[in-house]
């Protein structure tokens, strides 16, 4: 065992060791019996619970519906954030009028809107899309607004002196220059979308990962809950990774690692 470890480079050790070590310690602490194993199950039990949910078919269907909700909400929220952010970032009038209205709503946590959303839009899919869209909108709007308003004036003057009209100025100079900001806002938006998803699915849902977390909480199936949290973490990481990959393709001059 030791010679095998010695052969590994420090970098590989740094990659390979932490997660297995963490899982091993967790397994030991859980099995020693200091905590109630039903409430603090070892990772091996969470894995078995995941397999159980896979066999039941609930895991895949819940993951599918949740990803669908996140994708639609994220696209709608990003579209609204970029559109309104461009407007408020370019126009002083809209920056003041719309900007102060948005700033008024921005600090209110999404969870505070759940009851109101159910009253306004009912328990259907629309209320879930709305909550995710609402949550994604703010970071995307803020970054778009900042990015658009910080485009260097020399770029604008140069483009104008070369005869660019308003449309070309916006699509070929302003938005490309602000893209790194917008992309950063959208990346935050992905994480926010998953938070809003769970909030949206915890009430009035009959499927989805958030719904399943709530159900497992009510019946104290913590092993299943941990399994679902792991799935959520993996989905979040995959979404983020896919976004970074796409962004790097789109902005090769401004790569993220």
């Amino acid at each position, binding site marked *: 065992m030791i010679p095998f470890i010695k052969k590994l480079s420090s970098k590989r050790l740094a990659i390979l*060791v932490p997660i297995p070590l963490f899982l091993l310690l967790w397994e030991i602490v859980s099995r020693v019996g200091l905590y109630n194993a039903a409430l603090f199950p070892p990772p091996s039990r969470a894995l078995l619970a995941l397999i159980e949910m896979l066999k039941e078919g609930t895991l895949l269907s819940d993951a599918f519906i949740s990803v669908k909700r996140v994708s639609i909400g994220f696209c709608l929220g990003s579209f609204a954030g970029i559109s309104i952010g461009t407007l408020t970032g370019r126009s002083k009038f809209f920056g003041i009028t719309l900007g102060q209205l948005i700033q008024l709503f921005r600090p209110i946590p999404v969870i505070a809107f759940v009851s109101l959303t159910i009253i306004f839009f009912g328990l259907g899919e629309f209320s879930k899309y709305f909550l995710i869209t609402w949550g994604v909108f703010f970071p995307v709007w803020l970054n778009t607004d900042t990015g658009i308003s910080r485009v260097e004036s020399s770029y604008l003057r140069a483009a104008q002196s070369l005869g660019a009209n308003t449309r070309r100025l916006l699509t070929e100079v302003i938005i490309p220059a602000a893209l790194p900001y917008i992309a950063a806002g959208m990346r935050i938006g992905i994480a926010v979308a998953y938070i809003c998803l769970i909030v949206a699915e915890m009430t009035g849902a009959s499927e989805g990962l958030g719904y399943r977390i709530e159900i497992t909480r009510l019946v104290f199936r913590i092993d299943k809950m941990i399994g679902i949290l792991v799935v959520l973490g993996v989905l979040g990481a995959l979404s983020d990774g896919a976004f970074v990959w796409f962004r790097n393709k789109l902005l090769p001059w401004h790569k993220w690692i």
Partner: protein
Amino acid sequence: MKRKIWIGITIVVVVVIMLVATALMNGCAKQPSPKKLDLVLAVNVTTYSAPVYIALAKGFWEEEGLKITRKDFAAGRFCLDAILGGKADFGTVAEAPMVFVGLTGQKALIIATMASGDNEMKVIARKDHGIVSPLDIKGKKVAALVSTVSEFFLYLFLNEHGMTMSNINLVNLKPAEMPNALINGDIDAFAVWEPFVYNAGKVLNEKATVLSSKGLYDIPFNIVIPEELAQKYPETIKSILRGLVKAEQFIGTNRKEALEIISKEVGLSTDVLEGLAKDIKFELMLNNSTIDLMEREAKWAIEAGYAPKDAKIPDYRSLFYTKALKSLNPKAVTIE
């Protein structure tokens, strides 16, 4: 680099040690005291909580030297969370959430059933959504609060009419959210306790129908405490029960005033309450029938996948603290 790895490993080990130390510190026993006087009570809004409302309003617990801070919750299941989480010293909880306490080996104890009845749970449905008889519920969106008497009753109701949970689309909702969801047409029916059924029916009038279910499910509504209270403060439990005995005597002898107090708490008129209260038995007891019911519910929970398939039905007797009630009224306790 290797140094950094060791630092990383050390941090992980330290975090785990801290977790273990916290657990051990939490486990350390505090100095016992003969009686705990300041108590937090977790109450579920239902007509079944009537003895608690009366004991508070008439100062019966104050007479026992107890100072009660009351916290309201949407369901007994959430009262149980407060009790298990150390945020409440006693609370009102039906038997269904306690089934999961037993299945997961947690520590909370029933000290008395304070109300019971077989007509509290109802299914209310939208006639204009095509539901006029129980069988019409097939394929419809039906709300219940998962893991509580609400869901177990729905399960019994469906079984009674030759259906299973897979025949409906179950929506998990808190009781207070159900009437609005039915009124807005987001769901086709819901199964829960009063006053929520009555409130929805009052708004929907002819558009709604209450599907008959009397006699299907006799719910024992209980007072639950954390195990620690029984171990350290047995006298306090007797005081809690004495306050409830006075409350139940008051309900029997001062019906009108009692209904007025309950009316303020649950938001139903005294006339409506009079009708509902006829089906409720307010009497402190600890019956073997509750254990039989809990064992049946545990089987349902395992079948429904709420407990691991290999889970064993625990001895639910261990979730009852009988000493206090036995000392006050031995005849009220049939659990050995």
